[in-house]
């Protein structure tokens, strides 16, 4: 709010006051009042108008300029009510009360949705754990009753399990609360778990798994990391070539970080698709090739990485290779956590 805006807003008042002034002037002239008295009355009248206008202007200016400035600087605009000083004029008070009520009802509404979402997430997690029971049962039944269809059945069960894991970690990655635990984790152990999980599919498809130099400890949540590596390897398997396919996993320790590269000689990703592979539900050309793809795997991997403070990057050349690299920083922050957990 500046003077010009204020005056523009008050133009009607000013015109009415001026009109009244002329009426008074005419009356005074008609009664033939002494000219000096007219001047005195005029000065007092105009001074009165000026003082009230200026006083009003100053009161409003302090409040509204404060409001505008704070609103501009605030990141979360709805917090503005908490930042303002109670104004000493009626309109301001009305505005503050209205803002307060609006904020309150909005927060209530948001909390309602928050609780709903939280309830839903908790139910989904619970449900996933429940579904894992019949899956365990099925796995054991298949193992106990050896038959010709076993491999096919197990393959479908492993697909089911994989989809379940995906939604479980999707829910976890969306959660504002921290439900991971950072500990010292040996990469070789996590890789071994993932390898065993995918053993049958790898052998079935004739894909060689070459793992080297992974006996390195990093700071991470081992379950989350296992999920991430599993997603990456699943992609490598899904988009492998028929002949001489392999997946190479190599870790390398640098001074400030540990890099884990998962390299495959599969069909690769086209240049146009590559920058978008971490986007939610983006499937690209490979997804359209008839391979089943949800476009969620790498998206969740990226989200989990951000939460854990790791970095994920991808390189690829069509028909040649794909290489996904996970970087674990040796951050001071982690060292503090490490000390505390000891």
């Amino acid at each position: 709010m500046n003077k010009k805006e204020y005056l523009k807003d008050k133009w009607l008042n000013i015109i009415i006051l001026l009109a009244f002034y002329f009426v008074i002037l005419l009356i005074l002239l008609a009664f033939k009042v002494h000219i000096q008295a007219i001047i005195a009355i005029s000065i007092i009248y105009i001074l009165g108008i000026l003082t009230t206008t200026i006083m009003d202007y100053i009161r409003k200016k302090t409040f509204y300029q404060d409001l505008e400035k704070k609103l501009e600087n605030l990141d979360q605009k709805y917090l503005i009510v908490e930042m303002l000083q109670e104004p000493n004029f009626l309109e301001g008070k009305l505005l503050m009360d209205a803002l307060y009520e609006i904020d309150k009802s909005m927060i209530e509404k948001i909390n309602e949705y928050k609780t709903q979402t939280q309830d839903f997430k908790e139910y989904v997690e619970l449900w996933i754990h429940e579904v894992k029971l019949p899956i365990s049962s099925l796995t054991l039944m298949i193992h106990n009753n050896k038959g010709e269809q076993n491999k096919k059945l197990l393959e479908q069960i492993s697909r089911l399990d994989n989809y379940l894991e995906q939604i479980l970690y999707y829910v976890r990655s969306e959660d504002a609360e921290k439900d991971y635990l950072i500990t010292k984790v040996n990469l070789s152990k996590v890789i071994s778990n993932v390898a065993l999980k995918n053993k049958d599919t790898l052998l079935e498809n004739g894909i060689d798994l070459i793992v080297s130099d992974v006996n390195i400890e990093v700071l991470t949540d081992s379950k989350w990391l296992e999920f991430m590596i599993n997603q990456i390897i699943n992609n490598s398997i899904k988009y492998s070539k028929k002949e001489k396919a392999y997946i190479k996993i190599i870790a390398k320790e640098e001074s400030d970080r540990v890099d884990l590269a998962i390299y495959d000689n599969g069909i690769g990703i086209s240049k146009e698709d590559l920058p978008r592979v971490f986007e939610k539900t983006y499937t690209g050309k490979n997804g359209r090739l008839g391979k089943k793809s949800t476009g969620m795997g790498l998206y969740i991997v990226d989200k989990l990485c951000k939460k854990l403070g790791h970095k994920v990057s991808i390189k690829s050349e069509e028909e040649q290779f794909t290489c996904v690299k996970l970087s674990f920083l040796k951050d001071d922050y982690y060292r503090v956590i490490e000390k505390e957990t000891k």
Partner: protein
Amino acid sequence: MPKIKIIEDDLSIASELQELLNNAGYQANITKEFSNVLEQIKKELPDLILLDINLPRINGEILLQNIRREYNIPIIMVTSKNSEVDEVLSMSYGADDYITKPYNPTILLLRIAAVLKRSERPKDKLIYHDFEVIPQKGILKKENEEIILTKNEMIIFLYLLQNKGKIVTRDELMTDLWNNDEYINDNALTVNISRLRTKLDKLGYKEIVETRKGQGYILHE
């Protein structure tokens, strides 16, 4: 025959698990009543306990602590809760291993064998007929004769030896190899087995590893 107590409320899983363990040469017991598990353990004195976390009327983690307070029996937690926090908690309460559902049955058996082996008093020597097996050095030793096995051959031979007289499937061998970070393929397994045979031949044991077509291998007693 080691006794294993299954504390699991999902009846279907429990009975399939029992069958799996019985087939693998253990004596498995199902828990039907969960209110007095501690007394049952006192009576049965199992060699190993498979414990689920989500149980009716009792929390598995508390049960784990209670068992630990009185007994030194190895406990493997088997659960569908797969978060790091749950695992770290269970291990800190004294669990010996933590396996999440759904699991690969062969791996479960390997982990059970490993935990049982740890709790056993260490045997001084692994002996097959008249030769000694030294896994750490990768050596088969017969009087003054020594034969060196590669890491893969040793893993295969030990697995056959632990299950001697029984048919061992290729899948079991493969799982054990992968479990030991040896990610070999089918051809490599065939090559490793035939090399192992040649080496055993040299020690004078011809055809002790027999191939059962479509089933697997068997190491004769």
